[in-house]
């Protein structure tokens, strides 16, 4: 018999809430990549996503028994990731993060994947040219506040609707709408500043 995916995930969460380390390991495994990318995106280049994700999952493990509605796990996880990122940014305020890769292959993979994706985005551009453009975008994104980055990432990268964002940032839908508007405006302004 096939267990429906939702039921399976809910079961995993509930078992992890009871302290089942194996169930938690499976949860980590299934959410690790998306969590890492989420943190990298909202961190604006100011945090090491590895460290933040590690701390976030420790928080998740510690506080999971207090999560009363297992269906709310996804937005709750996002909220914990935002919190951990914010905390890490505060801790590194005034410190510029220079990441020293402890494994060269991961950077190599990152770069080659980036070039492939560049080609997908705009086949008429040389990968190098598109990389420069992406650097400029990264800098513009880094100019935004973490709240602005979070709302843009949730909306445009995660494809979240206003309701979903509202669950993560714990604000009413109306507030989400106005903040999304503000974040778009801020990104436009930051892009213009980069162009100048």
């Amino acid at each position, binding site marked *: 018999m096939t267990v429906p995916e939702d039921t399976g995930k809910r079961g995993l969460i509930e078992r992890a809430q009871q302290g089942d380390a194996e169930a938690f390991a499976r949860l980590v495994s299934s959410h690790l990549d998306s969590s890492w990318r989420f943190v990298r995106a909202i961190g604006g280049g100011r945090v090491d996503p590895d460290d933040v994700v590690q701390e976030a999952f420790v928080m998740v493990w510690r506080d999971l028994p207090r999560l009363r509605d297992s269906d709310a796990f996804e937005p709750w996880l996002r909220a914990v990731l935002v919190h951990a990122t914010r905390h890490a940014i505060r801790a590194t305020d005034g410190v510029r993060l220079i990441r020293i890769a402890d494994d060269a292959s991961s950077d190599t993979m990152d770069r080659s994947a980036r070039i492939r994706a560049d080609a997908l985005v705009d086949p008429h551009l040389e990968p190098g040219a598109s990389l420069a453009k992406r650097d400029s975008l990264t800098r513009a994104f880094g100019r935004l506040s973490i709240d602005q980055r979070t709302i843009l990432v949730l909306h*445009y990268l995660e494809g979240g609707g206003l309701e979903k964002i509202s669950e993560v940032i714990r604000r009413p839908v109306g507030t989400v709408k106005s903040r999304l508007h503000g974040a778009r405006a801020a990104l436009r302004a930051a892009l213009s500043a980069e162009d100048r």
Partner: protein
Amino acid sequence: MTDTRPDRDAQDAFDEALRELKAARSLGIPGVGLEARILTRVGETRQRRRLAFIPGSWSGFWPSTSGPARVVALGSIGVAAVLVAALVGTVVLAPRAATETPGAGSSPATSPGPTDASASNPPHVGGTCPLTPLTRLAGGSAPEVDVSGLRWRWGGVPWVAGAPEKVAWLADNAGGPEPRISAYAIQLDLPILVDGRPVNFVGAAGSAIYAITTDTGVDLLRLPSAGCWLLTAVWSQGASSVVVAAAPPTATASPVPSTPGPTVPSTQLAMCPATSPSPLPPPQGWPGPAYVDGPFRWLLPPSQTWRIGAEGDKLVLDSGLGWGAGDKRVIAFPLAQAAGIGRLRGTAVTGDTPSISGGTMGVGITLPARDCWAFVYLDAGATSTIVDDLRP
């Protein structure tokens, strides 16, 4: 006719940026061994369980980590039983609470809950302790105050000097558990109402600062003496203050001046949780930073040129609510990390009588040292709190 459409180039650049963002979604991978590191850390970390802490009548309204627009307790209540601490004074060093009633947080919660009621303090009597207006009674009995982004909830019984009062600090804007709270208590030299009569229990000499740090979001506070108390909570996202009155332990207690207890060792904070400057720039010509907390805008002298130990600098407040009659004051005190429970080495400083002009208020204040300072404005209806880092 004017073309009101967005600038096409700018729109193109924006759309392109969004495409880039989406493309970037598929890029990058976690570092090698991250998953193993997480599981190792998890193996060393105990889960927080829903242990008993709050009276049963609260259970339906305890914040949950689930669902939208729900408050998140600042930290776990699970390990609270072993981390309970108290604000203590000279002789108040009662054993930490060991018995708690079951049922804390045993059901889903939204805030405010369906049986929450609006609440109010007794009418303010001019010149007496300016109790912070209650926002509601959670569950019909637990007073709550929402102020400066923090929700304070206490046990529903009047504060009594020397008796433990259970306080929870909840944030409705937290993205997740934020466990660490530092709470400070300073006695104000203002009378409280006892049986309807104002009685002045003279504050501990020199405005002693009592402090605790909790990493549970719930704690027992024990105010060392009767009187009017300013309580300030500082956490990573901000600072918040309330004013409460602690009744004497017995009706016959005489208003004898209390003396501050011995100090506990304290250390300077590694990182001052300074308030983020206002996104709106200060008025033209103002040389220092501007901060906004609630309806108040604070304009401070520049941190590095603030005159220390001498009169001369004034800070300015604008109020979006206007200024009512009655006592208004600004109190500043240095934040520090106490090594135990008790009195910190420094003392609180009260600003001069404010001068009001054209909707703004100027307050002269003499700070004795460069430090991480909390500034609290309070009047009969409101408090506002900011933190500024004046360290070199």
